[in-house]
């Protein structure tokens, strides 16, 4: 997928101008976290569950060579074809080859962030294939020619009115009323059902891969992924090695975290495990199944200090709780994965040079780490990336010099207190009459949006020490 992460600040600025979308983002930023909190509280032992799953995933990653070998053996035994793709281009060409071998024209696709990452749709379309996204949200943005704004609800940035206009324009179904949301869903169901029944190849992602039996776990509410996995005669699962878990029960333990963290549900409607092609007496199911394992730098992450990021279960909780994400939306991040998890993943899966604005899109509030079901220390990883950014001299020279001066000063507490005391006293004197500053030198960006209240004359540390002395004297 094309990347626009480097213009994050401009993207964000533009996003903030759209009041209607900003209002919807704000609403989702309150409703979805509330639903999650309620679901987590109803669970009773959520912390213990989070600890357990983290230990299992760490164990799986520590021994990934063992579990990958086991998964490969079992998946082959189940009758699958296995493929390995080092990068985007490799995955795309493997998938196209399979489609061409079967002279396929129509592809039904379930939601898959991995194929968003590789830009599979446009690659297959350039080769003349009719690729249709079947998750309702993905379908809407595909029709609109947009990219996902959220990894769970890809079209949540659009209003129902926009979607109504889009459907009236794109679906050749004559004059009709599309009033209620259920009318829109019903129309998409009708259009997509025809495509499902005609598609020769289904493509899905996987929420987990089970090493002990070679099954792929697929979690959806709509059932669209299951239609992709069951109706066409060829099934291709596009996924990555970090989805591998030792046992089926580990996959469903992770599912408990996933559903509650993603949508605040206690349960998704369809949780399916698929092992391979149709068995002898089966009445339906694909005749041929392929699993494509994409690496795209994940094996580098495994050997790096950012390994914990491979524990991400793609629930989107960190997005829903991030003050930056809920203000500017997913498109501002300029690639597949937005929000805190995206600000870590994007530099690691693309390059820091092309996305160093993202680790800075953080207020260090720590909410993402608090709610992350995989217990990933997202603010720490973002800070490490900012550190790398400075070391690689990617941030502006003026900024770097300023930080050097600050670091030098912060390492000398006496001098720091003396100078900040001087500054505070000077500001107090200057602001005595008006009580606040409308403009300040070197802080124009800050004061352009608000006034700085004038300090009261003494720094916090001075007041604190004086009170301590007074208390000791008493």
């Amino acid at each position, binding site marked *: 997928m094309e990347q626009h992460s480097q213009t994050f600040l401009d993207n964000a600025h533009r996003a903030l101008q759209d009041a209607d979308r900003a209002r919807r983002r704000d609403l989702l930023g309150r409703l979805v976290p509330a639903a999650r909190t309620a679901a987590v509280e109803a669970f009773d032992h959520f912390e213990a569950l989070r600890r357990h799953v983290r230990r299992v995933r760490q164990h799986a990653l520590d021994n990934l060579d063992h579990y990958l070998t086991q998964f490969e053996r079992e998946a082959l035994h189940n009758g699958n074809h296995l493929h390995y793709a080092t990068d985007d281009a490799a995955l795309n060409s493997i998938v196209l080859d399979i489609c061409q071998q079967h002279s396929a024209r129509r592809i039904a696709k379930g939601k898959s962030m991995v194929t968003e990452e590789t830009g599979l749709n446009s690659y297959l379309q350039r080769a003349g294939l009719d690729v249709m996204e079947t998750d309702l949200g993905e379908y809407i943005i595909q029709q609109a020619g947009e990219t996902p704004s959220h990894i769970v609800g890809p079209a949540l940035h659009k209003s*129902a009115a926009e979607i109504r206009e889009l459907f009236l324009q794109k679906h050749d179904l004559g004059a009709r009323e599309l009033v209620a949301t259920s009318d829109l869903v019903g129309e998409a169901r009708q259009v997509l059902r025809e495509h499902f029944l005609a598609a020769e190849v289904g493509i899905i992602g996987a929420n987990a891969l089970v090493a002990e039996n070679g099954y792929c776990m697929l979690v959806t509410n*709509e059932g669209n992924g299951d239609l992709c996995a069951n109706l066409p005669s060829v099934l291709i699962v596009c996924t990555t090695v970090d989805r591998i878990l030792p046992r089926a029960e580990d996959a469903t333990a992770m599912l408990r975290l996933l559903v509650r963290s993603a949508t605040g549900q206690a349960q998704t409607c369809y949780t399916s495990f698929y092992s391979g092609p149709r068995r002898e007496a089966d009445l*339906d199911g694909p005749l041929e199944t392929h699993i494509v394992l994409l690496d795209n730098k994940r094996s580098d992450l495994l050997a790096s200090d950012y390994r914990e990021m491979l524990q991400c279960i793609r629930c989107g909780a960190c997005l829903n709780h991030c003050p930056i994400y809920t203000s500017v939306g997913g498109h501002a991040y300029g690639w597949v994965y937005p929000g805190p998890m995206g600000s870590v993943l994007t530099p690691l899966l693309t390059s820091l040079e092309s996305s160093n604005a993202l680790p800075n899109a953080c207020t260090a509030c720590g909410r993402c780490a608090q709610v992350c079901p995989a217990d990933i220390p997202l603010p720490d990883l973002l800070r490490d990336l900012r550190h790398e950014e400075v070391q690689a001299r990617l941030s502006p020279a003026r900024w770097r010099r300023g930080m050097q001066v600050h670091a030098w000063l912060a390492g000398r507490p006496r001098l720091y207190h003396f100078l900040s005391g001087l500054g505070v006293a000077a500001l107090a004197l200057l602001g005595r009459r008006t009580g606040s500053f409308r403009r300040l030198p070197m802080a124009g960006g800050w004061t352009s949006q608000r006034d700085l209240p004038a300090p009261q004359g003494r720094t916090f540390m001075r007041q604190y020490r004086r009170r301590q002395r007074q208390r000791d004297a008493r």
Partner: protein
Amino acid sequence: MPVSDRAALFARVRHGCRGAPAADIEAQLRGLGRAPAAALPAADVATSFLVNVLKNQGSANAAEHRSGAVSAVSAYLYAHYRSQRLVAGNDPRLAAMPWRDAGVLPRFGAVAPGESVTLSFARLGVAEMGAVVIYTGRSNPAANNLLPERHIVLLDSSDLVSDMESAWERINADMEKLGRPRGVNFIAGPSSTADIEGQLVYGAHGPRGWHVILIGDNATDALQQARAIAGR
């Protein structure tokens, strides 16, 4: 070349791993213990299962034995379609039921375009999720779970388990005996979507209606209690 891509990936993965012996890995995994499950909404498994079915926006009924289940199916068909037709997989348990007594007209096989209702006999019910577990195969074509407007599922109360770990114990035992089914489907509610402005709509791609009939001695009591707890 695919072989070299595989070799490269395995080499890189190995580089990031500890290279522990398989026996140690297995022992360590066993040492991690069992994950905590969700708290059940009632004291017994049957009631908890039905509470969660209702919370998942399913509808439910109960019968003491199989002839009662046939009547319940007939009542559901009449209420929604004023008809007695449905499609069921080639499950021997379904074939053996006294359909004629209630006038129900099942066709056995995979659902075809234009057919609105299907019937499945679940292998398991999981109380924690309010889900039924169905294996795809001759007894249950996958299309029957996914394509109809309404899906009716029968479940014996002796096939209820409390949590997903217990479900896998049973499923793994089945796999040992019968081999691995192509698909193991946990179904917990009608197909739904919230992709348009976060508004929940049922019948996104799959069934709009999901009706579970629990069969067993205690099923009717459990249903009554479940309705009181779920408030539905």
